[in-house]
Structure formats: structure tokens, C-alpha cells
């Protein structure tokens, strides 16, 4: 038995040592690259002061084109939206943005419509993208605030990174190799953080009616985002993007709301029910620029 345990102990120690080494190297490589938005922000974005940033889910990512907005307004914007994320992730991204020493005048929040009234938040599908910064307190606190195995894995990755790197191996380990080979490689977004869905629908049909949806901003992360913005003197603007079937009726809030949920009247602008395509993105971005210009002092 003693020989067996000695053998197992030796093998386990070597295994843990090697997996730790590989995992730390993997996280380091991710931090040195631009594959995901959190490291893109720190590694590739040189500017430190912005007129506005866009925080959001896939909706923010694919609706607002900062290049279009900036070309119209002469501003400097950055899209930090990530697909498959919730309001909690957007709060996290704002924390990360501030922690990276960058500044913005306006924070445009373009989350999923239904997310604004979620009361019980859960870890989002792409929150692992903050793991390269897992040793930072705000990231740890964030992971710790959720229950469930993935959140625990990400939290304990601070000490045992092979947990997170192993669990999310296709999402973290292999991209770290890509980052090592090409540190400028980005995962489906351009140098300004923008991405668009292709124009797949050739259908052109007038949208006659939309279901009305009241949004009351009950999500606790809404208040946290407001507080964080207030603390850093950032003006919060909530942008409700065009939707194919829903017309949003937001309640009065102490922040500015740009409600474009019913502005696009034709199906040709949509990729699916809640996402616009490349045409819709152009139209929505121009419309947004018009409306936001006043806020920016133009």
C-alpha cells in the first residue's frame, strides 16, 4: 500500500505541476493577445480616453457600429459588447474597463431587452473570458457571487487554473495557442470591437405590428451599473435596439434611454427576431448617432 500511495503521490504531483504550468502559460498567452474583448481592451486598445463605449450582449455587438457613429460625429468610440452575456457581464466589463485605466464620457448599455428585468442573475455563457484576469479582486468577487459549478470552477481557478482552463478548454486553452502564434488575432470582432451578422434575409416585408413590452429595469445589476457610472462620472445611456416583434415601453428612469425598438419598419433589416443584419446595423447606427449627438455636445 505504501508503495502504491508513494507512486500515486509522485504521479499526482507531477501531473498537478505540469497542468498548473500549462494553465498559467495559457492564461498568460491570453493576456498577451487580443482574442477576447477583456484582453483586447488591455493589450490592443492603445487609446485611454473615449467619448463613449458600448457595453452589451450580441445585440450591442451587432447593432451599433462605432465606425459609422464616429464617422458621423467625429468621436472616438469602442464597442466592448460580447455575445452570450447578460447585464451582470456588462457590469463586469465596465469594472474591467475602469480597472484597465481607461476613461469614457458616456457608457452606452445595449443589453438584451429581456435581461433588464431579470432578478436572479446567473453566470453568463461567455463570462469565462475574464478568467485571464482571475487574480484580480473584482473578477474573483464576480465569480464568487454566482452559484453553480461553472462559477465555482472559475472562482477556484485563481489557485488551480487548470480547473477553468480544462473545463473551458476549447474556449480558453486553444485560443491561448492562437494568441501565442498571432497576438493580434481577434475572435469575431474588428479593431473597434464591432461585428455584424451577414445579410442573409432577402425578404422585404413591412412590419405592421409589434407586441408591446414594458421594461422596468428591475435587474439589480442595473443599479450597480448606475452606481459605478456615477462614481466615475460616466453618463449612462441605455440603448434599446430595433426588434422585429417587440415595441419596448420603458419606464421613466434617471438615465437617458434611447428607444429604437420600433424604428426599423422592414424585415430586410433583420438577421433574426432580435438581431439586425449588416443593413440594419448601418441604419440603426446612423439613427443612434443622430440621437446621441446632443448628448455628446455636438
Amino acid at each position: 500500500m505504501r508503495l502504491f500511495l508513494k507512486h500515486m503521490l509522485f504521479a499526482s504531483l507531477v501531473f498537478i505541476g505540469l497542468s498548473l504550468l500549462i494553465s498559467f502559460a495559457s492564461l498568460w498567452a491570453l493576456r498577451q493577445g487580443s482574442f477576447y474583448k477583456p484582453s483586447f481592451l488591455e493589450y490592443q486598445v492603445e487609446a485611454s480616453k473615449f467619448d463613449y463605449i458600448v457595453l452589451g450582449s450580441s445585440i450591442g455587438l451587432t447593432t451599433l457600429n462605432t465606425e459609422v457613429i464616429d464617422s458621423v460625429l467625429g468621436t472616438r468610440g469602442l464597442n466592448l459588447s460580447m455575445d452570450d452575456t447578460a447585464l451582470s457581464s456588462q457590469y463586469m466589463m465596465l469594472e474591467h474597463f475602469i480597472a484597465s485605466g481607461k476613461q469614457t464620457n458616456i457608457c452606452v448599455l445595449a443589453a438584451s431587452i429581456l435581461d433588464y428585468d431579470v432578478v436572479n442573475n446567473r453566470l453568463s455563457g461567455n463570462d469565462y473570458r475574464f478568467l485571464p484576469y482571475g487574480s484580480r479582486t473584482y473578477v474573483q468577487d464576480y465569480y464568487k457571487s454566482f452559484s453553480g459549478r461553472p462559477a465555482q470552477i472559475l472562482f477556484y481557478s485563481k489557485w488551480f487554473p487548470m480547473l477553468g482552463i480544462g473545463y473551458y478548454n476549447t474556449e480558453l486553452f486553444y485560443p491561448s495557442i492562437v494568441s501565442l502564434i498571432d497576438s493580434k488575432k481577434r475572435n469575431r470582432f474588428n479593431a473597434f470591437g464591432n461585428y455584424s451578422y451577414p445579410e442573409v434575409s432577402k425578404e422585404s416585408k413591412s412590419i405592421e405590428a409589434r407586441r408591446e413590452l414594458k421594461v422596468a429595469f428591475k435587474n439589480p445589476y442595473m443599479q450597480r451599473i448606475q452606481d459605478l457610472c456615477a462614481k466615475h462620472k460616466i453618463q449612462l445611456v441605455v440603448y434599446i435596439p430595433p426588434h422585429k416583434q417587440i415595441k419596448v415601453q420603458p419606464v421613466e428612469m434617471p438615465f437617458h434611454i434611447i428607444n429604437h425598438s420600433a424604428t426599423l419598419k422592414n424585415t430586410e433589416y433583420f438577421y433574426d427576431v432580435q438581431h439586425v443584419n449588416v443593413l440594419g446595423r448601418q441604419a440603426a447606427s446612423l439613427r443612434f448617432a443622430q440621437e446621441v449627438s446632443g448628448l455628446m455636445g455636438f
Partner: protein
Amino acid sequence: MLFNSLDFAVFLPIVFVLYWFIFQRSLKWQNLLLLVASYVFYGWWDWRFLGLIMFSTLVDYLVALDLAKQQQLTKRKLLLAISLICNLGLLGFFKYYNFFIESWVDAWESLGINMSVSTLSIILPVGISFYTFQTLSYTIDVYRKQLKPTKNLIQFASYVAFFPQLVAGPIERAKQLLPQFSRPRVFNTDMALSGVSLIIWGLFKKMVVADNCAFFVNQIFDGAGNYSSAELFLGAVLFGFQIYGDFSGYSDIAIGVARLFGFSLMTNFSFPYFSRDIAEFWRRWHISLSTWFRDYLYIPLGGSRGTKWQGIRNVFIVFLVSGFWHGANWTFIIWGGLHGLLFLPLLIQKKNRKYIDATYLKLNQLPRILFTFILVCLAWVFFRADTLSIAWDMLQQIFSFSSGSLVLFYATSKSLLFSLITIFGILVLLFFEFKTVQTNKKEVTLSTSKLIFIALLIVFMGVYKNPSDFIYFQF
């Protein structure tokens, strides 16, 4: 409890420590611990079905004790019938009830007569096909006077519910496993180390090979109409690796875990994809089931004795029943029948035992190996497809050779990544197995450095987020 779960990673060391450090002096307590651990292991999935195992255990325990006392053939047959009815009755109800009802209704509907018979919403208890066959072997062996019944209920119950192999085999014979519960156990370092090696190798097969293959297999079989001939063919090949990695991986882990407790379980897979014909494939694939059917069905039917036609009939019955054992669906029966058909030419030409002793592979045998592998993979289409029509459509599409496009495997960066991981995993599997076959060993053995290498592959190439269930759990 799944072998590839965190629960099991906690459960196993606890049982190991209790077994070897707390109860090492008492065989009785060790067996009791194994029994309790086995029931916890099973009850983790659904404790309600523990009653079925206990019932099955009790019936066969009592029947076997009575069989030993009875000399009168009629009474002995009656006792055997009680065991068969109880065990097969439970299996029939939970696994086949709805199938028979639906087939009955379909048969009448095909004649234009509509029937309204409601089916039941029955949950299939995990592992019922495995432990039913295991307990049956005990009673039949006692009936045949090949085995003396045990009077120790704890030992017998531990044999029936032995957690390493309870839910997906190997289906152990009482003759082989039961006596091990009555022997004092001494810790054997080499045995335990080989057990750990098998556990790691089994996890690699399951988590790296099978679960990565599943990424493509599920897409292809769920939307067969959308893919090219080449993609469908590769889907069948990948399912071949998925089911092998999944099932043989489970068996390896089961055998490895049993060794940690001082038990030897039979080899269940012996590198089946290196088979040179279908007969050899069946000597290497799911050996515990094949030999079970050989001993308790094929030989009682007359085996190869009698006329050639009787031999062919017996082989077909075994293959069809084997297919039906896997699941209550015509797809499994056709799969079994197809293997029977593939076996037939060898049987007629008396070549079915050609490779029984030839263990070393030669380069000129590669075409035979590939041919056998392709036949097996094409048959897997019936095994994996949800319905016969889907399987048939897939095979028609494959053989239409309409398109060689493989775009599914590289269309997105994610699919390209999964392709590379899957190919690498399969190559590692084949490399280790080929080396083992060439050295005439029965199982892959890993040195410490190889063990660590494979463990690292599991961490960085395994599927964790959405792992597939072990396929054979559904049987």
C-alpha cells in the same frame, strides 16, 4: 453516479480509504461496505429503483438456495422458471412493454385496423439489462449444478450490485466473480497500479475520444438530410469511435476500479477495430455479453451441432436477441440481424474461427482490417439512427456517392477545432492500442510518464461542459 463526474471523484477515494484502512481486517465488513457503496452509487441516479435490484437479488438468492436442496427435476425447473419469470419479467416490463404495445398497434394498423391502446410512461432503470443477466447466470449455473449457491446474502448482494460494473458491465458470471467475495483480500500494489492505469485510459477514451466524436455524430444523425455522402460516412465512422470509446472506456474504468478493491473483472473489449473479419470482431467486442449469449443461449439451442441450417438458425437467433437486448427498437434488431448476415459467409465457409489464435497483425492484413471496420461502421448506422427510415435514408445517401464535401468539419473555427481534437484523440487511441496488440498484451498499460501524458490530454482535450451520458446506460 457517473464515472466521469466530480461526485465519483469524491466517492471513490472515500470508499477506498474506508475499505483498506478502516475495514481491512474484516472480510464481512469490507463486503458490507461494498454493498452500501454500491447502493449509494446506484441510488445517486434514482434511489427508487434500488428496490428492483434488491428484489432481483432476493429472488435469485432464495431460488438458488432452494435449487441446491431440490433433487426433483420438475421442482428444479419450476424454481428456474420463477427466477427467469421474475428477472425477465421486470426487464420485459421496464424495457420492452411499450415496444411490444406499439409494434402490436403498428402491425394492426398496417392491415388497416386502427387500435387505441395507450402506452405507459416508463423510466428504464439504469443497468437493468446488465444486472438481470448477471443474476440470471447465477441461477442458471446453480440449476446446471456448475456452481454451489452461496448462503451469505451480503456476499451475493454485493456480487449483484458491485458498483464498478453494476450499470454497464462487464456482465460478470457468478462463477468468476462471486468466489472473490468470499476470499480475504490483500492489497496488491501492481494490481492497484494497473487499475489506476486502466481508469485513466478509460477516462481518455470516454472524455477525449467519445465525447469529442459526439460533437459531430449528434449533428449528423440529428439532421442526416443536410449532409453529403462523405459527411454521412464519416458520421458513421465517428460513431464507431464514439461508441467504442464510450463503452470500452466505461469497461476499462470498471475493471480498473474493481482492481483497486482487489477484484478481477473479465476483459470486455480486446481491440475490436483491429479485427480481420466479423467473427473476430465479435470475439473482441463486448466479450462479456457475447460469451453470455454463447453459454446461455447459443449452446442450449444446439450451437454448431446438428445440420448446417440449424447452426445458421442458432447464430441468427443469437444476433437478433443480442440486437434486441440493446434496446426496444427495430433499429437494434436490424443491427443484430445485419451482423448475423455478415457472419453468415464465414460460418458457411467454416472460416469463422480463422483468426482465433492469430494475434499479431501484419501489414498485408490492413485491407481486411479496414474492410471489417467499414462494415461494422455501416452497421452502426442502424444502431445509432432513431428510426429505420432514417438509417435507410442515410445508407442510401452514403452509397449514392453524390458529394464528397466535408464542409461540416471545417465550416467554423469551432468545428475545425473539434475536428483536430477528435482526429488527434483517435490517433492516440489507435497508436496505443496498436502497440499493445503488437506486444500481445491484453490491455493498454501505461508507464508513469504515459499516465501523466494521458491525464494531461484528458484535462486539456476532454469534454466537460456538455458531456454525453454513457451510451450503454440506456441499455
